[in-house]
């Protein structure tokens, strides 16, 4: 079978701001391979002196979108790769990538549901791929997303999430919590995700939702522990930790 993990040169065909600190990059790939929702790509930068920096970024686009992928990247102040992508990269530039990688944190429609998605900040990205996949194939798997952001202007994919909910036949429900500041007449949650909040969101899904939690490590750890303590089977709770914040760091 074809080895899918060779490095290839992708071309940036669109850059879209999502929030003040988050942008989505559309990359056209010469050797596109259908990814599964939740998988990631490695991005590698090479300086003129040969120094290389490499990070993993979750694919945001659905597998049904052929020939290209979208990566949504948060700009980290001390990030070697995210600052380059945000501050230097323009449409038409080329960038070295390999993927798709990581079969552990994936959801495909045939895996069924109900589906519980919990995201903190840019942890929404692989979960968005799952929601886009679900919408693209017309899945009616019952799905609840609990999404924690700092303020209303930090909510990534805000408009699209509203539209996905509106266009769904009532099987997709999205719950926002804003931890730092809330606009007037805010009707969502206004605190960090806690056990009470999780209990309220999880209860209608029954005892065994397929669960995906992605975000900063401490949020993921807290959510996963609380989910197990309210009775979910650890085998059904998959986690993807981003480290302190933002993209997935790795050695090398």
């Amino acid at each position, binding site marked *: 079978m074809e080895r899918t*993990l060779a490095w290839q040169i992708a071309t940036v065909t669109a850059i879209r701001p999502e929030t003040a600190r988050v942008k989505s990059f559309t990359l056209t790939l010469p050797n596109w391979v259908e990814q599964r929702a939740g998988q990631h790509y490695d991005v590698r930068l090479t300086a003129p002196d040969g120094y290389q920096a490499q990070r993993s970024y979750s694919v945001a686009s659905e597998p049904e979108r052929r020939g290209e992928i979208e990566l949504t990247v948060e700009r980290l102040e001390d990030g070697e790769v995210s600052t380059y992508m945000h501050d230097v990269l323009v449409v038409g530039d080329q960038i070295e990538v390999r993927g798709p990688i990581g079969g552990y944190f994936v959801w495909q429609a045939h895996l069924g549901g109900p589906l519980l998605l919990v995201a903190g900040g840019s942890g929404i990205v692989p979960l968005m791929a799952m929601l886009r996949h679900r919408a693209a194939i017309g899945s009616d798997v019952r799905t609840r997303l609990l999404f924690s952001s700092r303020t209303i202007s930090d909510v990534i994919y805000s408009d699209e999430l509203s539209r996905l909910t509106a266009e769904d036949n009532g099987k997709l429900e999205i719950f926002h919590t804003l931890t730092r500041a809330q606009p007037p007449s805010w009707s969502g949650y206004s605190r960090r995700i806690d056990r009470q909040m999780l209990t309220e969101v999880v209860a209608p899904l029954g005892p065994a939702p397929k669960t995906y939690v992605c975000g900063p490590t401490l949020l993921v750890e807290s959510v996963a*522990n609380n989910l197990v303590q309210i009775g979910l089977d*650890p085998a059904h709770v998959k986690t993807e930790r981003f480290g302190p914040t933002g993209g997935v*760091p790795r050695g*090398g």
Partner: protein
Amino acid sequence: MAEVQRGFDEDESLDHALMVDGNAVAGLLYEIFAMEVTTGEAECVSCGKRAEIGSLLAFTQAPGVVLRCPRCENIVMRIVQTAEAIYLDARGVTYLRLDNLSRG
């Protein structure tokens, strides 16, 4: 995979905050095994837990990568890359079970 048994004290909180999942080093593991292994299984030498490799605790803020058991936190694997070679220390693994279907 979530585990309730684990706890961290204050000294461990920084490492703890930097921890990611085995899934995050899938690319590096692919370089070693030439296949997708995050859905494969590793049995911990120390406590006997069989865990999906993607669910191992990964510590990457170092010259190498350390993968620990999600139950007992024993070191399962250590990986160091140099310009010439990749070193894999897997003495914390009783066995690996890698799915034929994930080759590709």
